């Protein structure tokens, strides 16, 4: 089971995660900080989530499993 976490204090609102995995991530419209969209992570999104973590300039995304 893949587990994703966003460190909201580290996130800088670059939005790279949205580009890599738009089904999983979104940005708060007011703060610009990333959050996980509601719902279970689909198997099909696993690779995209890893890409999002690798692309994050702020290293704010952790992926386990």
């Amino acid at each position, binding site marked *: 089971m893949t587990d994703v976490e966003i460190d909201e204090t580290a996130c*800088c*609102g*670059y*939005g*790279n995660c*949205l580009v890599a995995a738009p089904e999983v991530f979104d940005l708060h419209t007011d703060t610009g900080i990333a959050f996980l969209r509601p719902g279970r992570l689909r198997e099909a999104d696993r690779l995209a989530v890893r890409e999002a973590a*690798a692309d994050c*300039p702020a290293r704010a995304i952790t992926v386990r499993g």
Partner: protein
Amino acid sequence: MSTVADSTGFGFDPYDPELTEPAVWDRYRAARNLGGTVRALDRDGFWLVTRYDEVRTALRDPATFSSASGHRIPTDGSRRAIPIDFDPPLHTAYRALMAEALSPARVRALRPFLAEVVTRLVDDFAAAGGGDFVSAVALPLPLQVLTELVGFSGETVAQFRALTEELWSRYVDVDPAESHRRLWELMRAELADHRARPRDDFVGSLLHAEIEGRPIREDEQVGILATFAVAGHETTMNAAATLAWLLMEHPEAQAALRADPTRARAFVEEMLRLRSPAQNFARRATCPAQVGGTAVAEGDAVLLSLAAANRDPERFPDPDRFDPDRDARGHLAFGWGIHQCIGAPLARTEFVLLLEELAARPPLRAAGPPAWSSLQGGNHLGLTHLPLRFEEET
């Protein structure tokens, strides 16, 4: 089809004064149409990379495309800037130190100050009956922000523009050493002043910082401050003036923004995509690599054109059209990955505040012909002169 390997190569000298508005965009388009990755023979030779997918792929792969030889052509590794001309792990340590001054939390805390600076500059501009938007608003904005953000004195930041212009002019000739030396002297004087009169600001924190568990060296402190001094104003100045130019050039978009200032964010992103202020960043291949269909040899320099990639029709349909309603997400104007612009959260906040302030005024109109720079340092495109005025209220 991707390789252009004829004997003449593709003409692209990043320091060519002819590479300016609008010719520079034609040059990028020509390279894209020749397959995207083309061999330039200028300045010791390099690969110019212009397609979105290929530029982004290279940006995401710092192990193959190293920054340690510098981000300018030629990639000779001289006078490396911190942190952009370093690879991990040292890059990571430098960047973390600088990120403290630019975190979203810090930017949020600065927001009232930023809004006040923007309002005052635009007030003064309006009171003067308009004028050159570059010297009256676009340049003073980042300089004033640098005093608050870093702790530079007003006298110090007042010298940044002249020193930076000298720096760029020297790249066209041979040796930028002298202008670097003057910039570094100024940074040393700031450090000395902070040592003599300790203050709770970024320069102050730098005095006692650690890098990888050891005390930071003075040349590192100087390098970090020099990056704030140059990168901290050149890009912001060019982007701020470009925003105003777009308002002037597109009265319908200006009217739409005035009717609904929440459009400012999207307007800013489309400016960054269409007219990326920092256009070209070099890397050097650490091993044989493929860029699209082109074989790049170990040691080859590549010039990743963010500005060209942002006009790749495969990624952004009708790419040369300014469309503030389009989804510009994913543009590469701030770069991508570990070297992505550390000042992006700050810059975005400043630009949105500036647009909101301008949208709250009477319509902004041309008051004379604008003038554009060529690629400064092979990279920065911006307005050198932008005469504007607010329409008189009736």
